[in-house]
């Protein structure tokens, strides 16, 4: 019985045969899995998941020619076809531009003549007769693209400012919302409450309210995005602080350093890579959401998108979507490089 004699700092000795090492899962875990499965089956019916899979399947079959045609395919196909060709030129009727000097056109522009046939009722014969008018257009071959790019730059600026606002707001939110740094329970609950609230309010709704206060334009847009983003960053920053390696924090606390000093010297270096990743994600998200938020008149490329969509100018819509996609794609590449550099 040598094991029985082993004393560990006053803990009562117990025979090895009486030890108990529980299995990794038990019936409670199995029950939980079962309940989740049942809930998903119930929810799946409400969400018509079966129908979704069926229609998607049809569309896929139709597109590879295994089936005549599908409802989804038809609907999407019509819309999709109208996006092409992308419109990149800017075309305006010359008659409506009184300030244009024909002998000295703006750079890159040219005048195009287009024959337009209209039908007029001939009062004498009571017949509709075609009449050919020639309309003159001032055409800038890539004027619209430039316009969209300009709007995209504006959108990007909105995203940058929204991100700055998010970061500034979420630093105190993270400090008060980290269990191991918050000064008291009240501050903790308040911070977590604010963070949840900001995250729960869709930016579209926040923007609608802010448009009432700040008027149409970019301010309402980036403020709305900034507030919503603070809801994310405040939460993620706080959780990383809570999860950071405690050992260096203890070492600096033992030297008499206060909370903020410990945070700066022992926590920040540890969490910096994930903070950079979160912040870049929020920037990326803000670029995409800045496009959506324009729908309620909060500036940026979204306002342009909404206007073109409402007037069925799908060729223009296509150009806008392409520019947004390319911006997000490039941003993603840049972010990946930046992250690799900071983490390496």
């Amino acid at each position, binding site marked *: 019985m040598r094991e029985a004699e082993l004393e*560990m700092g006053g803990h009562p000795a117990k025979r090895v045969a009486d030890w108990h090492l529980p299995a990794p899962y038990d019936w409670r875990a199995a029950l939980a899995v079962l309940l989740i499965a049942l809930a998903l089956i119930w929810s799946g019916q409400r969400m018509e998941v079966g129908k979704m899979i069926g229609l998607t399947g049809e569309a896929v079959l139709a597109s590879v020619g295994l089936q005549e045609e599908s409802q989804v395919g038809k609907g999407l196909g019509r819309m999709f076809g109208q996006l092409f060709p992308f419109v990149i030129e800017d075309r305006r009727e010359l008659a409506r531009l009184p300030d244009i000097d024909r002998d000295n056109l703006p750079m890159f522009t040219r005048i195009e003549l287009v024959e337009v046939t209209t039908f007029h009722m001939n009062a004498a014969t009571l017949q509709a007769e075609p009449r050919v008018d020639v309309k003159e257009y001032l055409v800038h071959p890539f004027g619209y693209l430039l316009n969209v790019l300009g709007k995209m730059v504006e959108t990007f600026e909105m995203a940058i400012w929204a991100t700055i606002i998010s970061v500034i707001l979420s630093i105190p939110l993270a400090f008060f919302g980290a269990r191991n740094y918050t000064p008291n329970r009240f501050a903790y609950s308040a911070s977590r409450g604010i963070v949840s609230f900001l995250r729960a309010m869709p930016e579209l709704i926040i923007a609608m309210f802010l448009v009432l206060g700040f008027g149409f334009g970019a301010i309402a847009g980036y403020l709305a995005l900034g507030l919503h983003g603070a809801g994310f960053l405040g939460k993620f920053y706080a959780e990383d602080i809570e999860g950071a390696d405690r*050992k*260096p924090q*203890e*070492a600096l606390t033992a*030297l*008499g350093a206060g909370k903020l000093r410990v945070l700066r*010297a022992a926590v920040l270096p540890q969490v910096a890579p994930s903070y950079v990743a979160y912040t870049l994600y929020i920037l990326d998200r803000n670029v995409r959401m800045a496009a959506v938020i324009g729908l309620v008149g909060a500036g940026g490329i979204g306002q342009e998108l909404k206007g073109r969509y409402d007037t069925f100018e799908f060729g223009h819509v296509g150009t806008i979507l392409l520019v947004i996609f390319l911006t997000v794609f490039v941003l993603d590449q840049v972010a990946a490089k930046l992250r690799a550099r900071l983490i390496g």
Partner: protein
Amino acid sequence: MSATAILNAARTIGGQVQPHLSFRDLRKVYPDGVAALDGVSADVPRGQFCVVLGPSGSGKSTLLRVVNGLTSLSSGQMTLGDLPMSAANLRAIRRKVAMVHQLFNLTERASVSANVLAGAVAEVPFWRVMLGWYPAELRARACEVVARVGLDEIHLPRRAVALSGGQQQRVGIARAFLLRPEVILADEPVASLDPAISREVLGLLREAGREQGATVMCSLHQTDLAREFADRIIGMRKGRVVFDGPPHLFDARAEAALYEGLTPPAQAQPRKEALHA
């Protein structure tokens, strides 16, 4: 001059040299009922290299952590110089005490220089900490201690994780010595190092401590290392002091009594998990 006189007067009470660290009947009972310290009394004079030995769970770490207030006492009194441990004195005491940790406790992603300078994090102005912009004298001092622990200029910008275990502990020691503390606490500073590196690290700890007149309290598991380096050995068992004396009195019988009925203490033999420098 008068300040020195006052200091000397303060050091001698009743004709006796005042101990640097004084433990009076220290007791620590954890909420689960374990008495990690069960009436520990001892005086440690200034400049002593005092090794605390004892089986696992005997309360060595707890005793060390009482000195810088990482563990609060259930009863008893710890006094550093003329500062009794209390909530009001906690900061003041911590500023005089530095700690070397078993697992180094470095900020792994930060550079060696940042880790060493963090030893002054409680002393420099707040804005300097926030910007990571430490004063030039302090940076010079950091280079000095980094050199003293046997590291090189090329190590300064390296991340702490990128060093071997032995090198990391050297950084830990450099951080501890940065501000010339009065007391160094070392909780099993060599437990994760191989024997050769362990000797180097302990030697470094003792010599650097001596140069600055710092009192060192060091817990160890290797009795042979304790005999080799200690000025004095305190043997603990179940929260009580069962041996207290110079190393030559810590003979085989004393050792057997200290670890009686338990697994033999780890000798300084190569271990599988040892980190190689």
